[in-house]
Every structure is written in C-alpha cells, then in structure tokens.
C-alpha cells in the first residue's frame, strides 16, 4: 500500500518536501514505517527525537497503519 507522509519543521527539510509517498506492506506497523524512513533518510536518526502522528493523534510503535490514514512525522515541537 502507498501511504502519504506529511512533514513539518526539520523533517520537511530532511525530506526536501512537505509530503512524500512511501510504499509499505499491508498491515505495516508505525515502527516499520519509522525504520523505512530512517533507512531512506538517515538524517532522521540525527535529530533529537521524532514521533509519528496518525489521524491527528500521537501514535505508538505497535499501531497498525492503513492506506487511508493521515500520517505525519512530528520532530521535537518548539511552539510558545
């Protein structure tokens, strides 16, 4: 399945785009996506930390992804 990943802050700089498409096996977990992204974009491993958000909620690593999900990479936030 193809999923679209939204990127913000430094993640947008790392991807070179505000969204990217990634090919994932069906029933992939959030942790699978993280590994794939880190493999494709090694600079992700150099930032302090990052989380995935799925459908506007912070996602645990064991969350099963669906092609209809809205997925975003959330680097360390710095509002305020």
């Amino acid at each position: 399945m193809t999923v679209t990943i939204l990127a913000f802050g430094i993640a947008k700089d790392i991807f070179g785009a505000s969204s990217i498409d990634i090919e994932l096996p069906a029933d992939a977990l959030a942790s699978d996506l993280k590994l794939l992204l880190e493999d494709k974009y090694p600079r992700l491993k150099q930032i302090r930390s990052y989380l995935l958000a799925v459908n506007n909620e912070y996602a645990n690593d064991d969350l099963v992804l669906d092609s209809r999900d809205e997925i975003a990479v959330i680097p360390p936030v710095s509002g305020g």
Partner: protein
Amino acid sequence: MSPSCGGIDVFIGTVRDATKGKQVLRLEFEAYEKMAVSEMQKLADRAMQQWPVQKVVIHHRTGVLQVGEVPVVIAVAAAHRDAAFEACRFLIDTLKQTVPIWKKEVFEDGEVWVSATP
C-alpha cells in the same frame, strides 16, 4: 469572562531578540494546524478537569514574527487566582512539549529549528 470569576491570568509570549547570547533577527513558526488545534483543545480540557477554572483561551500564531511580536497568548479565568495561575502555567509548559508547532530562529549567519537537534 463569567460573573463568578474573580480573576483572569494571562500569559503573553513575546519574541526575544537573542538566544544564548546570539542575536535573533526573527522567528518563523509552522504548525500542523489540525492537530495543533486538537492538542490545544485537549490541554484546555485537561486544565478544566484538573483545576476549578471556568474559561480557557489558547491562541498561537504562525508565520514570520519580528522581535517583540506575540506568538502565544494563554488566558485562564477562575473564581480564585491560585487555580488560574497554576492552570496557566500548566498550559504554556505543556503546549511547549506536546502541541505540533515549530519555531525556526533566524540569525545573521543562518537559521535553526529550535530543539530539533541534540
């Protein structure tokens, strides 16, 4: 504002002209807007559960802000000031940790996403 409130505590965040002694020219804010709004709603709900507060406002700007401008305003109304101060402090502290908003500091000689790298 409600007649049963005895005070409103307001936190106003302003753009500072320096970070760690280095001059900041401006800040650039970016948000994952839909999620930022839902996370701010969650914070307001938590504050209202945790303290006897009656009204909460959280406002955050995005885009380019110059030194002295106001990126964030939080206001909390309560019957008594202790609850208002505590809830206001909780809201700004937690906003900075959980709400998907990012700030880029722009210097004379470059720019950096705040907190992004170790």
